[in-house]
Each structure stands twice: as structure tokens, then as C-alpha cells.
């Protein structure tokens, strides 16, 4: 059995950045395992632009970003395997993967970084009632049919959920000749980026139905109709507001869920809100030696942030392998009022120079304050013109403010 210092599962932007960073921090015994035929992950089907402004200071398409990221990896002579699926990790870090050429192989690592991305919530996950015809699919699945396979999935389309993939696919389908009849969003505000509302919906006069959802799906073999209706502030259907719409395709963009079946099996503690693992400031999970980054940790708005996170996870995994990671002074970081989750949920300040806490707010705010407390004591306040749940926010706290830590709390309050 081949031994590696570090095994990275997933060759998307998170895994690539982690591999590069671990290598640059002195770890050369690395194996990255990717299930698809190319490095780059889901970016390869995201042919639209808008990637890389932070990382590369220019606006790239998904495949271009993937190309730049993977060329960094290729430059460094890091071992990687394509078309290879990891099917198991044991408690002593024996990783089983398989591909057509080698069959089922086992390799062992001192540390593992899981960068396995996320999956889209399905119709079943949100229990849309009605018939079960063909034509109801996730937006990302449609994206793969169009952008990778070259097939259209339908001609009259409705989209449930205003997540970015749904908005991007609305425009994509219109450009390829389909009619997109609307987007329904159950919340009273959009979950996609503002720019995507403008350039994917408004540009093509596609209506956005806020506080609406799909109440019923109709059709025997093929989707024929959907019934949309308004919801009240408890997200319950309002009777009498039903509208029937004839469509052959319903795309779902109703949320992404971190995908971690391998380490969930191992018993890694999962955050109830993010559905990804609980991590500390070093991106280490509840199982020492297993690190997590990217969309399998928590769902990001921008790939740039995934790369940044991968870089940090790679850095700390390298420290762990070199026995330089401290874990004896951990304190908790909690979400206070107005905040739905914080990441990380623990910090040992011995490992860092400054602490970055990522979080999302629970609802849209106009002028507001982000408040960070140590115990009851406010240690940092930031004024913000607006905050929305669809955009991940961060606070960075210098180490000198992090003395005599009891526990940290992040709050958002109206200004």
C-alpha cells in the first residue's frame, strides 16, 4: 500500500488550491484524487463569466478559472489521479479509490483534505407534490446536458428557486432558444446575486415571483404543467393564489448541500446549519487529521473564496503533518442574534495571526452593525450599508484583540 503525507479528495478549485498550498508549505508527498476526466470540478460546466476577480484580478469564465488553477498544480509535479472515485476512508486513513485502469486500490495518508463539493437539493428533498414525470431536474443537471453534452432539455421552462445556478440557466436556456416563463422564489427576497437578477432575468424580461413556490407538478410521462402559488410569511401555501403554467421543464435551484458521505461515515461532526463538517480555524474537522474546504465545507458564493479556503486548508494540513498545529487552547465561536451560522466554530489563536470569521445573516438588513464579542465584551463593531443572507460576510479580527478569550460571538443588529 502506498503511503502519502496528504491525500486530497476532489480536484475542483478547493482541492487544487489545497494541494498547491500544502506543496508550497513543504509537503511533497501528496495524492489528489478526482472522479472526473479533468481537473477543475463543477467550474467546467459553468461556462459563464464572473469568476476570478479576487484571485486573478480579472473576470474569467469557469473553464478559464479551472485552467489557471490546474496549471498551478501541474507546475508543481503534484501526484493526481483522474477518473477515480474514492469509495471509502477507514478510521486509520486508508483511502480506497477505483478507476478502470487500476481497479480498486488502497492508499494511506497522514492527513486527508476533503474537497468533495456539494450537491443540489432534489425535488424529493423539498417534497414538491404531484405527479412524477420527466422534465423536473436540478439546474446543474440541465447545465451539464447543455454545456458539456450539447443537448437542450426543454423548450418551455420554469425555474423554482432564485439560486445563482437557476438564474444563470434561465439566461442560458433563453440564448439557446427556449422560452423561460418565470422564476419562483419562496422567500420574499432573491437568493441569487443581484447582478444575476439584472443580467439573467431583467435583460430577458423573465418575471421573478417572490414569495411563490410550486405547489403541484402535473404530467404522466413528460411534464405538462406546474401550479405555482403564493406563500404567507410562514411559507405556507395561500389558497386561491394558484396559477397553472404549461411547461415541459422545471429546473430546481433550491439550494446546495455540502456533500461529505465519506467522512460522515467516519463520524465527522456535521454543522446543523451548513450541513458541512464543523471545523476550527485550521479547517480541521472533529476528526484530527481530516480537513475540509470549499463547497463540501459550506456553500460559497464565489469560487475565489473557495480557492482561498483551499489554500488555508492546505497550509494548516501541512502544519499538522509537520506536527506544528496547536490544539490545546481552543475556544468556541458562536452565532448570536441576526446570524445563522459562523465558520469556524472554534479557534486556537496560537495557529494564526488574525482570525477571519465567515458568517451569513438570517435575513436582509439595511444599515446595520456587525458586532463581535468576547464573552459579554464587545471587541469589534463594523457598520454595513446592507447585508443579505445570499452573500457570505466575513469579519477579520487582529490577534491583539483576541487576548484572554472566553468565547466569541458574532451578531448583526439594525443600525
Amino acid at each position, binding site marked *: 500500500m502506498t503511503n502519502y503525507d496528504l491525500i486530497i479528495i476532489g480536484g475542483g478549485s478547493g482541492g487544487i488550491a489545497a494541494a498547491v498550498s500544502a506543496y508550497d508549505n513543504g509537503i511533497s508527498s501528496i495524492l489528489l484524487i478526482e*472522479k472526473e476526466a479533468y481537473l477543475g470540478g463543477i467550474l467546467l460546466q459553468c461556462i459563464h463569466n464572473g469568476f476570478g476577480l479576487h484571485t486573478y484580478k480579472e473576470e474569467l469564465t469557469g473553464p478559464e478559472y479551472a485552467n489557471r488553477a490546474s496549471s498551478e498544480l501541474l507546475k508543481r509535479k503534484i501526484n493526481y489521479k483522474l*477518473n477515480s*472515485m474514492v*469509495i471509502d476512508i477507514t478510521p486509520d486513513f486508508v483511502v*480506497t479509490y*477505483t*478507476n*478502470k*485502469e*487500476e*481497479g*480498486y486500490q*488502497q492508499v494511506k495518508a497522514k492527513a486527508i483534505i476533503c474537497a468533495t463539493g456539494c*450537491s*443540489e437539493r*432534489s*425535488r*424529493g*428533498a423539498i*417534497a414538491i*407534490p*404531484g*405527479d*412524477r*414525470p*420527466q*422534465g423536473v*431536474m*436540478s439546474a*446543474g*443537471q440541465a447545465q*451539464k*446536458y*447543455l454545456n*458539456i*453534452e*450539447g*443537448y*437542450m*432539455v*426543454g*423548450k418551455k421552462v420554469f425555474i423554482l428557486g432564485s439560486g445563482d445556478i437557476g438564474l444563470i440557466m434561465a439566461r442560458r436556456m433563453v440564448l*439557446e432558444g427556449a422560452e423561460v416563463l418565470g422564476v419562483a422564489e419562496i422567500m420574499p427576497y432573491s437568493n441569487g446575486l443581484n447582478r444575476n437578477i439584472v443580467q439573467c432575468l431583467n435583460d430577458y424580461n423573465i418575471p421573478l415571483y417572490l414569495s411563490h413556490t410550486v*405547489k*403541484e*407538478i*402535473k404530467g*404522466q*410521462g*413528460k411534464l405538462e404543467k406546474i401550479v405555482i402559488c403564493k406563500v404567507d410569511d410562514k411559507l405556507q*401555501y395561500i389558497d386561491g393564489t394558484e396559477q397553472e403554467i404549461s411547461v*415541459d421543464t422545471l429546473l430546481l435551484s433550491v439550494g446546495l448541500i455540502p456533500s461529505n*458521505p465519506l467522512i460522515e461515515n467516519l463520524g465527522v461532526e456535521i454543522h446543523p446549519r451548513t450541513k458541512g463538517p464543523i471545523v476550527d480555524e485550521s479547517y480541521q474537522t472533529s476528526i484530527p487529521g481530516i480537513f475540509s474546504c470549499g463547497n463540501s465545507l459550506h456553500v460559497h458564493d464565489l469560487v475565489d473564496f473557495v480557492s482561498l479556503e483551499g489554500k488555508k486548508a492546505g497550509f494548516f494540513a501541512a502544519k499538522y503533518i509537520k506536527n506544528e498545529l496547536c490544539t490545546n487552547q481552543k475556544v468556541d465561536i458562536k452565532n448570536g442574534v441576526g446570524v445563522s451560522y459562523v465558520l469556524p466554530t472554534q479557534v486556537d489563536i496560537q495557529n494564526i495571526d488574525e482570525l477571519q470569521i465567515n458568517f451569513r445573516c438570517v435575513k436582509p438588513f439595511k444599515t446595520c452593525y456587525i458586532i463581535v464579542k468576547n464573552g459579554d465584551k464587545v471587541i469589534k463593531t463594523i457598520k454595513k450599508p446592507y447585508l443579505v443572507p445570499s452573500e457570505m460576510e466575513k469579519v477579520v479580527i487582529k490577534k491583539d484583540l483576541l487576548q484572554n478569550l472566553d468565547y466569541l460571538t458574532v451578531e448583526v443588529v439594525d443600525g
Partner: protein
Amino acid sequence: MYDVIIIGAGVIGASIARELSKYTLKVLVIEKENDVCEGTTSANSAIIHSGYDPEPNTKKAYYNVLGNKMYDKICQELDVSFRRNGSITIAVDDEEAKILDELVERARLNNVEVKILNQQELQEIEPNITKKAIKGLLAPTAGIINPFELNVALMENAMDNGVELSLNDKVLKISGEFGNYQVNTTKSVYHSKYLINASGVFGDEINDTINKSYFEIKARKGEYFVLDHFDNDFIKHTLFNVPSSKGKGVIVAPTTSYNYIVGPSSEFVDSKDDVSTDYITLNQIKKSATNLVDNIDYSKQIRQFAGLRAVSSTKDFVIDSPKKGFINVTGIQSPGLTAAPAIAIDVAKFIEEKELKVTYNPRRKPIVRMKNLSLEERNALVKQDPRYGNIICRCEKISEGEIVDAINRNCGATTVKGVKKRVRPGFGKCQGGFCEVSVVNILSRELNKNILDIEYGKKGSNVVSNKMGGASND
């Protein structure tokens, strides 16, 4: 001229087909859908009932008890997933506890082993059942089965032994008499000495095309939730509510693949094609299930489905011959899946002149389940066929080799749903979001069909609508 034509390729039609394939008979199965296992068999609780429940001295009771005993052998011969996990009927109040005692007596009459469990025993063997449970009735011989595998395997084995299957073939008219029945279908005109009506919820309609109407089949819909795998020991037995004045109740049960199902509802519907779900019913199921398990985590739900049961106005299975050579096998509602093999044996007795076939092979070539094999066994397979090393379905860990095999057998898959029913890609958390494209490509390649012609499930449910631009479209 066929000796026997069977109308319907659900578990009843397929069980009869396999039973008849033991004999030197020319047998044809006609199915209106594009695959076997498309009606009631595809959407039920997947339980092999112990048989304590049906009213004694009914066909239901008789065939249930007989059928239950046959499943170990059948599943071994046909390589079908089956576990005798036992069922527990759970009483949560005194009224229900009293009914349990009556059921013990019924079990004795039906000759089925049962055992009463007290509150403490219940909590010990099923720690996650509701704290409200005061008494339980354990039926150790009850089991769970994969009904898709079963239905496919029965038909595949029947075909291996010479039975013919015609899909997408709907019966339009039946005429003639014993010795020469004529069946006009959407595809052809067939002639047969015997006709067997195993058309499920449509049983009365098929009967009425040639016989006097003497029963009516109503469709009763049952809706369900399916939960993802999360803990193989969360619930080990099939849990039943006590049938009481408050209604028939629901079940919470593991499946052979360690998912959990919660349901069914029970509601008569007008349309025999209506397998829709609705939120009011689904919410009622959730409520009923709290009398079995307190905390079902519906954030693990991955699908909701509904199926129809064929409920006969005779209140029992319809298994008889109203006219020589024409046999009705319909109204086979619960416990029909359990009863099917026993029914098939008796139905075969209607066929008078038949001889055992020496070449009959009761065994189906086992299917590969990579997930269950050791590393060495897997690699031996990959050596033979590298496609067993290529995982297509990441949720259920299904390899390309398994999918190709499911397509290329007798009674092979021709649709995405057909592949899903046979080897499970699409049954997992992503519900096909990741793997469907790959499955479509494999179907297109193996069946030598254009991707545009690959259907998801029913006829007309093509997965893609058109090929995108390019000057020379091919």
C-alpha cells in the same frame, strides 16, 4: 398460436410466467408499458407479510402464508435482495392493545408464529420506537424485499426459460374461446389456447371485454416518503400501526438497501393512472407515523411516491376462471407481493395439458453488487471487465459494469428508470442529478440508440429535446 398469453408484467404476471416456464408451453407476456414492474409492484411497501393479519379462510390469508414460506428459495435462485427482518405491530393505547390480543388469535387460526412484546422488550429491540408504545406484536417471519429486482428477475428467468415478452403492447380487444382466443393489441393480433388476466387495477376492464362483469376493481392510492440511508440500525423491524377504529395506519420500515420508507396513505381514486402525491396526505402520514417513531428526520427525505392497489369488490383476491381457458388473477392488493408465488402455482393448475421441461433452470445468473464484494472480488471483476472499476452513481456506488449488465440481460433496461429499478443509480440522495447524464450515455451506447430517443420512464418521456447548434447537425 401460443399456449398461454399473460396480460400484465407486474409481479403476478411475472410469477405466473416463471411458473409456466417450467413446462413445455409457448408463453407470451403482453405489457402495455415500456418495462415490467410499472404498476402496483413498483410502488408499495415492499413487505413480505407474515400472514397473521388477513381474515382467516380467505384467499388472502391462504396465499399469504404459503407465499411467505417460498421467498427464501425464490430469492436465492433469482438473486433478489430479501431480509426476514420481522414486523412489529405497535399499540399505543389500551384500545389498540386489546386489538393486538385479537390479532394473536387470528395468527393462530392462520398458523403464523407471533409473540407479544411488553413495553420494555419493545424498547430493547427497537430503541427508536415511540415512547408511547405500550405493547407490540412481533411476527418474526415477516420480511422486506426489493420488489423491482424481484419482478425483473422473475421475468428474466422466465425469458431465460423460453417465455416471450412484448412491451409497449396494449390489449385492445379479446375474442374467441378456449383453444383459440384472439387478442388484438396495439402491436399485433395474437392467438392463444389460454388467457391469463394479470392486469392489476385494470383487471375488471380486461375481464369485461370478453366475460360478463362479476367484480369491480377500484384503485386505492398509497403515498409514501423515502428517507436516505443514515443509520442501518435506526429501525430494524417493519413497524405497523394497529388497525383500529382510527384507521389502518402506516408503516415505518427499512428497505433492503437500508433506506427507510414511511407510509402509506389509503385513499380511493377515480383515475387508474393517478399516482400523484399531495401535501395534505403527506402531512397526515407524518402524523400517523408519530405513533411508531417519535423523531423521524424528514430532512433525510429524498423522494415521495404513490402507488395504486387493485381493490376488488369481492373483498378478496379474484383468482378464478369464469370461462374455460380464461383465468382472472386480479384484485391482488396487499398482501399480493407476498402471495404472488403461491398464486402462480395454483394458476398453473388451470393449464391442463402440460409437461415439465427438462431444460428448465430455476436460477438466474446472479447480478453483481460491487458494494457487497471484497476488494479482491472486485478487482477480479475489473480484470474481466474494466467497467466494473468505473463508478457512475456516487450515492449508491454503482459501477458502469453493473449498469451495462442490467441493460444487456433478458428483460433488460431500456430507460433511465429501467436502469434505476434494476441496479439503483438515481435512488440515492442526488436522485440522478449527478449520474443521469452518464446513464443516458450508457443506454445510448449499449442499445445503439440516439440520445434523443432515450426515455426517462414512460413512453414519450425523452430526456433531452434537441441537439444544440452546429451547422451540420447530425
